């Protein structure tokens, strides 16, 4: 019952959030000085007369006042219709679904890899605080915390694709192949570098947090007591440490989804990986308003889901925390 009430409240919050963001982004977009017709037509502007422009504008309903346009957009949004993407010439929902599935493999791999590796490095560095291995890991994490994701992507591209030729230079599949012909191994081969980039970037935060947390716990009284009973370091971490540090690490990893999304925009740009991030860039560059609005709403939903899962996991792992009790 309590869980149900919690979920209903979360759902209401999500609806309100999406509504706020839809109003905000729609207002912003209609204030933009960029003419959508011009952005759509681009370089061929010279070949199009004023009547034709007028007709495109009429067909898109651009001559109506913003409030009318917003209501129209919202009512079709309620029916699940996000409009048509001008640059891909497909329904926005379809573009987002296709692109998201491509990105999901990339983000999922990077998410799991960076979580597991970051956690392990954090435990290692916290358990041996002050040793040379701790120094190395900390230096590495601090350095990565301020490394531009796109530069790291460029570095990996130069080393592994250009010089070593281990990885392909671009795209999600080999060029010239139909989607059915691409094998799983080939997909994996193309996924490796972008996923590696995102993983390396994602490690820094979780490592530093886990390290800090483990040091605090190893200095606590119950650890001293366990140590006095003759438990060795591994046993201490296994029996007492992990449960306590897993919680903040998991929350942090779910909260980092927003950053992961941002990183994938840059990484996909460098590796020409046809995912949602690249679609976002294209929509912004070429003024595809319906697609841009769709992606804004979708990414909000995505990040919100991540945060909510973190909340629920919190509850499952730590019995002291009750759902619905807002801090």
């Amino acid at each position, binding site marked *: 019952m309590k869980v149900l009430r919690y979920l209903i409240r979360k759902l209401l919050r999500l609806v309100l959030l999406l509504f706020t963001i839809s109003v905000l982004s729609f207002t912003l977009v209609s204030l933009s000085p960029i003419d959508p017709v011009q952005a759509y037509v681009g370089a061929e502007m010279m070949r199009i007369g004023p009547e034709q422009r007028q007709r495109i504008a009429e067909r898109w309903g651009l001559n109506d006042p913003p409030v009318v346009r917003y209501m129209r957009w919202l009512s079709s949004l309620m029916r699940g219709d996000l409009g048509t993407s001008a640059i891909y010439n497909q329904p926005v929902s379809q573009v987002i679904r296709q692109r998201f599935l491509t990105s999901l493999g990339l983000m999922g791999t990077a998410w799991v890899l960076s979580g597991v590796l970051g956690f392990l490095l954090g435990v290692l560095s916290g358990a041996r605080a002050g040793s040379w291995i701790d120094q190395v890991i900390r230096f590495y994490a601090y*350095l990565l*915390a301020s490394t531009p994701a796109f530069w790291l992507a460029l570095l990996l591209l130069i080393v592994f694709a250009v*010089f070593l030729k281990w990885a392909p230079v671009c795209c999600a599949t080999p060029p010239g192949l139909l989607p059915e012909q691409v094998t799983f191994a080939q997909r994996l081969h193309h996924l490796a570098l972008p996923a590696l980039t995102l993983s390396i970037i994602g490690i820094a935060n979780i490592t530093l947090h886990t390290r800090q947390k483990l040091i605090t716990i190893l200095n606590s009284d119950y650890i001293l007591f366990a140590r006095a009973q003759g438990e060795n370091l591994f046993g201490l971490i296994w029996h007492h440490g992990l449960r306590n540090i897993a919680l903040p690490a998991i929350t942090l990893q779910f909260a980092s989804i927003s950053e992961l*999304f941002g990183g994938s925009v840059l990484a996909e740009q460098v590796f020409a990986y046809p995912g949602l991030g690249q679609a976002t860039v294209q929509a912004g560059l070429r003024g595809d308003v319906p697609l841009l609005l769709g992606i804004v709403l979708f990414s*909000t939903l995505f990040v919100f889901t991540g945060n909510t899962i973190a909340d629920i996991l919190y509850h499952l792992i730590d019995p002291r925390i009750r759902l619905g009790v807002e801090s």
Partner: protein
Amino acid sequence: MNLEVSRSSTLWCRVGLARQKVFDRRRQTLFLIVFCVLCLGVILAGSAQAAVANQTNLSQRNQAPSWAHPFGTDWLGRDMLLRTWSGLSLSLRVGFLAALFSSLIGLVIGLTAATLGGAVDAFFSWWIDVFLSLPHMVVLILLAFVSGGGLNGVVISVALTHWPSLARVIRAEVYQVRSADYVQLSAKLGRSPSWIARHHILPHLWPQFLVGLILLFPHAILHEAGITFIGIGLSPHQPAIGIILAESMRHLSTGYWWLAVLPGMALLVMVKLFDILGENVRALLDPRTAQE
């Protein structure tokens, strides 16, 4: 008796050592602050190189790093060191403007929310939540698109996306100071709210604000470089560091690694300088660590 003397002398010795260490730590912090400020000043001076940096020299195209051109030259024979230098200074100035506006927004919203409380607080807290639940990069792209790109677009979009975390810190800080005993007492003694704001709350906020501002820089610069890199920010006529890296991407497959590696490394160094500066200023201003 003899034992007593030796013990007290070791004690003094220890105090002396401790004092020595205090001084060293403080001096080290100050030294790092000065060092970072100097380096950033040197980077800023790169704006004077903009004209020279764009000079093409077609007889010296695509040269690997050497003594004459430490960062090599590009496909038009431009010296990459000069280009990087002027690009960094442009990024620094854009980042400065964006971080300044952003921190001012954060300060005003945090202050307003905490001092007015109630519905106003709930309203601003909701907006902070809204902004924090959107991926930065997507909002940056949306805002840069809406403001029509260019220099203004970059400054506006970075400024409008980085304030929530600082606003949150400021809001929490004001709440904490206001509920402190000495502030309550001061109010009971008949001090006006504005007197309390000036004498009790602002002195507390000022260091927080300064540190928040400095630590906003790395984020602002990285995001500025990011959206410039994907092509939504500055135009190629304003060669910020993001533009330089984006242009170098087209020449990667030819093996001209220095076009991307060295400017990116310079960007990393600049971001790191701000990080170190921020952490050390924080250590110096925070009463808990200032005496360490």
